[in-house]
């Protein structure tokens, strides 16, 4: 569903590769967890997947559509939850959702229905008529999540989605991610929280200094040996540090 071939990116103002020759293939119906220490290149990868950044080299395919050649088609089957919470502060929550729905070309009735459904799920209905500027961190996060799923994306990409959520919402989100993948869609998310990754993901990838250092299913990792995911993560990523 998501395919990256030899994708690299160096920021204009920097000399190190934030993402270095990354190749990944993520299947339909799977939840993929993307792990790595701070500054490893997770957010950069995610931004390239969603068309926010253009890769320097390499190609990205979303459901067989080349992102560079046909960005509109590719983006319209994606939903994106960013790690920052810079949403339009001077809009009301409901106005923002209406804006996003319109941009994804949703018909009015469907949009209404979806907003009601997801706002209820994340307990945000009350807050929707208020300005986003008055929202708490977690409320903005929830709004971002809702905005990313109302158009029923085949590929759902989340950057550290669980930070700031209360236990109920975190639970709802995990359930929703599972349900999403079970319907044959793909969920791609980055996280630092190994417990969550262990519980939710079908497959994980670990990135360090822009390079993919491990990709495997959780079963394989568990079957492999005595190492827990946490130990494995620590060994793999600390290698890079020592060099």
């Amino acid at each position, binding site marked *: 569903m998501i395919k990256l071939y030899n994708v690299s990116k160096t920021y204009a103002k920097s000399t190190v590769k934030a993402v270095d020759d990354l190749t990944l293939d993520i299947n339909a119906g799977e939840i993929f967890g993307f792990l790595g220490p701070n500054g490893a290149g997770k957010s950069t990868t995610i931004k390239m997947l969603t068309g*926010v950044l253009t890769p320097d080299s390499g190609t990205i395919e979303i459901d067989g559509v080349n992102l560079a050649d046909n960005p509109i088609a590719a*983006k319209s089957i994606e939903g994106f939850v960013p790690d920052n919470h810079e949403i339009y502060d001077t809009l009301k929550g409901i106005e923002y959702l*209406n804006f996003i729905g319109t941009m994804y070309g949703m018909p009015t009735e469907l*949009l209404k229905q979806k907003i009601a459904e997801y706002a209820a799920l994340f307990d945000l209905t009350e807050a929707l008529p208020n300005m986003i500027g008055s929202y708490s961190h977690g409320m903005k996060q929830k709004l971002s999540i809702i905005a990313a799923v109302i158009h029923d994306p085949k590929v759902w990409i989340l950057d550290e989605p669980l930070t700031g959520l209360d236990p109920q919402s975190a639970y709802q989100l995990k359930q929703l991610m599972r349900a999403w993948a079970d319907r044959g869609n793909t969920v791609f998310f980055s996280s630092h929280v190994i417990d969550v990754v262990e519980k939710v993901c079908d497959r994980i990838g670990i990135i360090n200094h822009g390079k993919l250092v491990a990709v495997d299913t959780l079963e394989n990792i568990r079957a492999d040996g005595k190492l827990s995911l946490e130990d494995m993560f620590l060994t793999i990523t600390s290698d890079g540090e020592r060099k």
Partner: protein
Amino acid sequence: MRKYLSLVKMLFVQQYKTRVTSLPGKKRRFGSVMLYLLMAVCFAPLLISVAVAMYYMGKFSQGDLYVGTFLMLACQGFVLMFGVHSIMSNVFVVKDAERLLFLPVRSPVIFFAKLTVAYLNELLTSALAIAVALVPFGLGAGAGVGYYLTLPAALFLILLLPMLFGSIIAMPLSALVTLFGKNSAIKTILRIVIYVLIMALYMYVMYSFGFLTGSENGNFLDNPEVVIKDLMDGFVERLQSVMPYFHSDYMLMMCMLATNAGEWFVGMALTLIENFALLAVMFAVSLPFYRKMLAMSVEGSGSSERRGKKTYSVKNRGVVREFIRTDVKRTLRDPQVGFQSFAGLIMMPVIVVILYFFMGLSSEGDSSFLEFIGITPLYQVIAPLVIMAYMTFLGCSTNVLGLYPVSRENRSLYILKSLPVPFGKILLAKVLLSTAVMLTGDFVSCVLIVALFGIKWYYGLAMLATMALIGFGSMCICTMLDLRQPKIGWDNFNQGLRNAKNSWIAMFIAFLCVLSLVIVSVPFVVLYGLTDGEGWYFSLCMWIMDLALGVGFAAVTYKIMNGKASKYFDRIEV
């Protein structure tokens, strides 16, 4: 003290920092230098003419104390209008509250640091303007060395009074604005209206001292010296009764123009004491206000918003329409951006009205003058041209909506980049919006011009069309510039963006446009004049040429913008 100094340093430096997020070109430094040089050349005539006027002011008044004080006051008014207003409101805009409040520093220190930064900003931007007025005045007046030695100190002191006024005005303003309520869009509009009123008041006060009115001694050409002396005497007389009330300025001027040490000393001492008192008053008055704003910003105004209407219709209105709708809401509700973006719209018509009063076209019920001049053929050709040139310059250089279409998005720009909407559509929406705003301003101004200046309606129409076309063209260029190197990550729209390079470039482009308009038109005006107003076809040709210029400019710039925009947009790193 150390905390205070490091706070000042941090705040001062921080306001100029934005994350430039696109590839820098190679020859940037050189280009900037050239740009500033060009700007200097363009603005030199204006500065020089102000300087010359001030020189003669000094000369004819022979360094009169009252005239000097008036000059100082006029400078302060200018500073108040164009600088302090926005800067002071930024002292009270407490977006950074959460970043500062947790520091182990008492809030008066923070507030004083913010005031200091505002003061430094003001000093940077207006010291030159004040010097351009005061130095030639001294030269003209033949002032002694003491004048110039005291001048640097004066530059520092002069700013205090407008800052006091600025902070005092800012308080009832925001109280009034809060009174009117929940709707932040209305607040922005209210803010603009009040600003315009204050500006008109300033103009009116300055005008009421009427430098050029009240000579009975006959003809200027026969006897210029007498007439000038007469005018000056009348002027001084009017000032005499008012100026001493602005005592700190009066003392400062006295000190500057002092001819002996005693006078200098007395003046300096008094002005220092008085200015210090001003500062203390300002601090005492506005600190509680600052605290209140802080408390409000941290606690949020959620309670009042909850009472707001709960009905909002969810509806798909089509991409471009929805985009424009949200863009308007977002800018209008944002106090900083909204004010900047829509003030220009109201400013233009107001300036037309002010111009009308200034030119004395309304004076003494003498409508016959306007009627007379209205039927003069040459007036009908020249006046629209002059006004149009002026308004084009103003309109193009103040169109903030068009100037920063992308930087305005600030940190949430990633949203636009991740949407499945072709950038062409986003661009179209942005351009449509700023064109609409600009057109509204142009339209109202043109109607006013036709109504007030007795210009024939068809000339008004031609003006409108030309102005719209040229405005559109310059906007295309500005959009492209902003796309090429957007400034993202600002906290203070004024400091981070408004004064950035693009504003200067926009002004420069506007200047070039006006210049080409004038160059194209002047030959026809001359020909028309030579035929004694018989050759109407020359006037027609002139407008056709102007319009053609407008169409060409708009078409070419639009084409260039469209070709480059999406490439630039993709390149931006958010």
